[in-house]
């Protein structure tokens, strides 16, 4: 594949060079019109190419939508994401209508009014009515979008710890991994600062704060379905960003301050895994991996593992050399499964005493 593509590229470059030299020769041989200013013949050809170009753009758009529709993220796995997706669809439709019309007009006019010696341009410098119309239309449309967007934004970002019974979890980022800290029985996170980092206390919890004793530090994020989660984020070194695309959630993790984001997961990992979209997507991916494995085995390497879908959290703010591989698995499960899992995790106090006894 690679070799083939390289050859194609080289061949294309070769062809363009050959064409260029030919064009150069032709343009010199003609002699009659060597002014290098477009003449009627040029206008005619370039105008037609403009029309062809807009058709190319339309086809490219259609091709991308047909070919890449599986790229879009599946239905939202969080509550607010449903609203997010609706706003996205509305904006997208709007954009594509405007794109379709304006690009069409732009290129069609370029074709229709391509220059000719016998034509006369229309001296048309001003028209207040027209200008008013196309100022007021964007104003109205954008006002609608702004208002809709702002309501959604306020809903998402209004994080109220008093409302409902939210689960409080700390997301802790460092080069190049994530940790999650559950606030334990009291649902209150113990105080922490990087200055307390020592030995097993890798998140810098304040050992004198009793709230911290029942905190549980884990390397895999488990969330009960249908319960609001409030994430408090802390970074140990540089900027990171907690990006959870399936939950339409992202927030930067900033050293020196605590940032927050909140959502309610509504689809468990299993539900997402078995959704029509994901079954198809994973099948495609595994087909690709199988192909690749064949090559790898032929080259004496190990085959790739079969992929099974899991939610993930990615780092999405450039944070250093291994930025591309800073991820954490997210598991959304039923309340019972979640509680069972949580029970098996050590509390901070247990970790400390385990270290002391060593």
């Amino acid at each position, binding site marked *: 594949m690679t070799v083939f593509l390289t050859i194609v590229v080289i061949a294309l470059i070769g062809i363009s060079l050959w064409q260029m030299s030919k064009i150069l020769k032709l*343009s010199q041989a003609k002699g009659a019109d060597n002014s290098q200013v*477009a003449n009627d013949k040029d206008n005619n050809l370039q105008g037609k190419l403009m029309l062809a170009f807009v058709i190319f753009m339309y086809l490219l758009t259609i091709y991308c939508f047909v070919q890449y529709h599986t790229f879009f993220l599946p239905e939202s796995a969080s509550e607010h994401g449903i609203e997010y997706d609706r706003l996205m669809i509305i904006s997208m439709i709007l954009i594509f209508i405007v794109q379709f019309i304006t690009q069409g007009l732009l290129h069609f006019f370029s074709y229709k009014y391509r220059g000719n010696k016998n034509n006369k*341009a229309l001296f048309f410098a001003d028209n207040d009515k027209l200008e008013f119309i196309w100022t007021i239309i964007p104003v109205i449309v954008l006002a609608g979008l702004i208002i809709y967007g702002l309501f959604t934004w306020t809903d998402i970002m209004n994080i109220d710890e008093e409302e409902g019974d939210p689960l409080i979890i700390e997301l802790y980022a460092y080069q190049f991994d994530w940790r999650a800290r559950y606030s334990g029985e009291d649902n209150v996170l113990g105080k922490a600062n990087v200055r307390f980092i020592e030995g097993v206390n890798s998140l810098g919890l304040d050992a004198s704060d009793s709230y911290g004793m029942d905190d549980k530090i884990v390397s895999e994020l488990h969330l009960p379905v249908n319960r609001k989660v409030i994430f408090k984020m802390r970074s140990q070194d540089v*900027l990171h960003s907690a990006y959870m695309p399936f939950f339409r959630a992202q927030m930067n993790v900033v*050293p020196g301050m605590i940032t927050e984001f909140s959502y309610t997961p509504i689809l468990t990992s299993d539900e997402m895994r078995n959704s029509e979209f994901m079954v198809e997507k994973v099948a495609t991916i595994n087909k690709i991996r199988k192909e690749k494995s064949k090559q790898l085995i032929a080259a004496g390497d190990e085959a790739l593992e079969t992929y099974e879908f899991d939610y993930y959290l990615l780092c*999405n703010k450039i944070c250093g050399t291994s*930025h591309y591989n800073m991820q954490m698995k997210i598991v959304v499960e039923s309340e019972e499964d979640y509680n069972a899992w949580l029970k098996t995790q050590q509390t901070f106090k247990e970790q400390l005493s385990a270290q002391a006894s060593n």
Partner: protein
Amino acid sequence: MSAIAHVDGHEEDHDHGHHHKETFITKYIFSQDHKMISKQYLITGLIMGIIGIAMSILFRLQLAWPDHKFTIFEVLLGKFGEDGVMDASMYLALVTIHGTIMVFFVLTAGLSGTFSNLLIPLQIGARDMASGFLNMISYWLFFLSSVIMVLSLFAEAGPASAGWTIYPPLSALPQAIGGSGTGMTLWLVSMAIFIASSLLGSLNYVVTVINLRTKGMSMTRMPLTIWAFFVTAIIGIVSFPVLLSAALLLIMDRGFGTSFYLSDIYIAGEVLHNQGGSPVLFEHLFWFLGHPEVYIVLLPALGITSEIIATNARKPIFGYRAMVASILAIAFLSTIVWGHHMFISGMNPFLGSVFTFTTLLIAIPSAVKAFNYITTLWKGNLQLNPAMLFSIGLVSTFITGGLTGIILGDSTLDINVHDTYFVVAHFHLVMGISALYGLFAGVYHWFPKMYGKMMNKNLGYVHFWVTAIGAYGVFFPMHFIGMAGLPRRYYTNSNFPYFDDLADTNVLITVFALITAAGQLVFLYNFIISIFYGKKAVQNPWKSNTMEWTTPVEHMHGNWPGEIPHVYRWPYDYSKTREDGEYVIPGQDYVSQIIPLQDGEEEMHH
């Protein structure tokens, strides 16, 4: 640079048309003549452009074929490309320097520097810039900063690699990434000098436009190019100093132990003493320049295309006043929208609401401009010269890229596409490609003015179509991999099986990128060959109204022999007719600005 100036020297040695006695050095190297300085800017900008684009090719190869070993990596990257495998930190360095070079060195200095210098004096009827000396200093500071930026590529631990936005703490701590050592120091020094250069240039442009217009050249008779350069210079003066202070504080954090941006950091096994600073402060300062910068890059391109579209459509630009008002509105709004880069930075969500509001407002003047361009084409007599094609191409990419801005500018929608390839696609189309098209359009259009020669139009056509198809081929599919949630600045996407099905698209994008980059060689060839062997230009090849075409083809100091002509009309009297349907000047569809009103002709009130 001197080598290039030297080449110019041989070519123009024989056509001294002026009375000043000048040595080789004062004429070609430390020249104070705006036309020479503009050429210096252009050629330096093009060289930086070659470096910047070459870098993008390297990292596109890496993204398309992460498992493949490329000898070229070993050749060009040395120890960072051992055995043909690109080092992950080198990938980040390439992305960083590509961004820096393209945004600042090519599209700010190369575009605005070239055409502001060339056109401001020529189009307003001035003998030169207000201060030729400061203008010369401005160029040489730019040259110096370019040299330092290129030198930083050879830093032992690698060049700056914290992204072109150089967010601390990553950019402040060499422990965090190798490139934040000497590489970042050189980056900061280079940018500080660049800012000084940019400020000197901008002040000069503003003073020149205000003070040195010829008689009759009222503000409302200025070509839109000049309006764009003028307003761009003002935005530059307002926002570049803020970047300087951001850089200064970063230098202090790096070198003198202050804590402006740093707090509570544990890295490489030890706690740093820094306390109380905030990276968010840096983000505010950076984007206070960073966003206006987008318009510093784009407005000159829009000014250039306004002029070229009107000339080649043989029609006045539609809605001159609305165009000027849009430029002013965009300039004003551009300084109060920076927060849309920071919706999820941890700043107060209420601020996010405010910035969403101002950001979507900026879509209004942008939409007005796009509609006005389209209307200018309507019922024109379009002369489809290469410059005109690039101008139409600019309107096209400006619309495509601008529309996705509606998604990114909406704080809600930004949450999930922030820092994904969707953003990369958006800003490359709306500012990168659009501004580059503006640059190309300008070069094709004013090449006769700069070098007294014509560029080959057929090569220009080939260049345009390869670029136009290639640019969309690269950036259109990129929206879709962004919608898939693929983060930008990832060295390889193969670490996540979930993204395995995007690999083919990445290959497609890289193939388009290679073709497009190869297409630029056509331009380079055309540019260089035309300087020496191009057809000699006539005085006014495009039959244009603006004043630069009333100067002699041969360059001379002071631009006009004898008195500077006066101006009697606006620059867009194309195809203006008398009441009997005949052109104002019979047989000629244009009326130069320096021609007085004819009998019975009324001046338009625009």
